[in-house]
């Protein structure tokens, strides 16, 4: 009898494995529904400030790497484009955030004309704007799409990369981080 019980335990290994996997899937699915689990999310690593070149967009104050290094207060770097719909919807949040922290925009694969037109229609949340015409700076920053934001501390230390449109929650996290 004891032998049978022991064998039953061995033979229930497939069941246990399957149930374990099933529970894992269930947790994933329920987190997927609440939004706290996204299998498509890319966990980009922390990077030190990369070398990059940006171009000026005519009426707006511009910036470059050195200026970012020289800052004494935190900055949010936001990649955007006028041709991207999520960027448009993100503008409201950015305008809200711009009261708390300076936001510098990098127009990704854009031309000056389109940017000017974009800001004739929308409020400008950016203190400074520069453009990355070829998308090279984007690659240096580890960009996977637009809009994406980076929180940069003084001396150009990047402490977070948000690879999606900013949400209310992100705004809170950012304001908490900078105190």
């Amino acid at each position: 009898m004891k032998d049978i019980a022991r064998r039953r335990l061995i033979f229930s290994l497939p069941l246990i494995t399957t149930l374990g996997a099933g529970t894992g899937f269930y947790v994933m699915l329920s987190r997927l529904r609440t939004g706290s689990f996204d299998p498509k999310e890319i966990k980009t690593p922390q990077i030190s400030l990369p070398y990059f070149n940006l171009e000026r967009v005519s009426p707006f104050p511009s910036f470059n790497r050195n200026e970012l290094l020289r800052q004494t207060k935190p900055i949010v770097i936001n990649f955007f484009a006028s041709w991207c719909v999520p960027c448009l919807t993100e503008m409201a949040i950015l305008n809200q955030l711009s009261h708390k922290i300076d936001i510098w925009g990098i127009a990704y694969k854009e031309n000056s004309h389109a940017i000017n037109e974009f800001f004739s229609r929308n409020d400008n949340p950016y203190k400074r704007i520069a453009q990355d015409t070829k998308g090279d700076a984007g690659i240096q920053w580890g960009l996977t799409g637009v809009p994406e934001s980076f929180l940069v501390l003084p001396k150009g230390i990047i402490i977070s990369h948000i690879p999606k449109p900013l949400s209310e929650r992100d705004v809170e996290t950012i304001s908490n981080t900078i105190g």
Partner: protein
Amino acid sequence: MRTLYFFSCLCFLFFSFKTYAVDSPEEMLANPQLEKRAETIGSQLRCLVCQNETIEESSAPLAKDLRQKVREKLVAGDSDEKIMQWMVKRYGNFVRLNPPFNLYTSLLWFIPILSFFGGIILAFGHIRKKTNCTENLSAEEKKHITELLHEPRP
């Protein structure tokens, strides 16, 4: 963020729009050896905006930029590993289709050996059973069996 690439990477029902990889000869390097190396590196890098394509296969703009970057670096004389490291530094291990061996992926890399030898051990248990079942027999029983075996068939 990825909605942006929605139109370039529509993930439809069965299969998506994997169209061309390198879709213009301008992208290719003139030196066939370098181009071959570029293709090898590119086929180990995952397109970040698409679902499960390499940057060589993908037609997404970012994949195109990355392809170009790989080729630029090759022409500049970088080694394959250096280019790989450059990519991983920016995009993390997610970009590598061949996961690196570390603590977190050790199970993944050991699975082939584990399951193969696990199977062999299981099978050996099966084989041993047989030797046991004849050894346990008494001499008389063994003799009876040999008699039965050697009995001419009707």
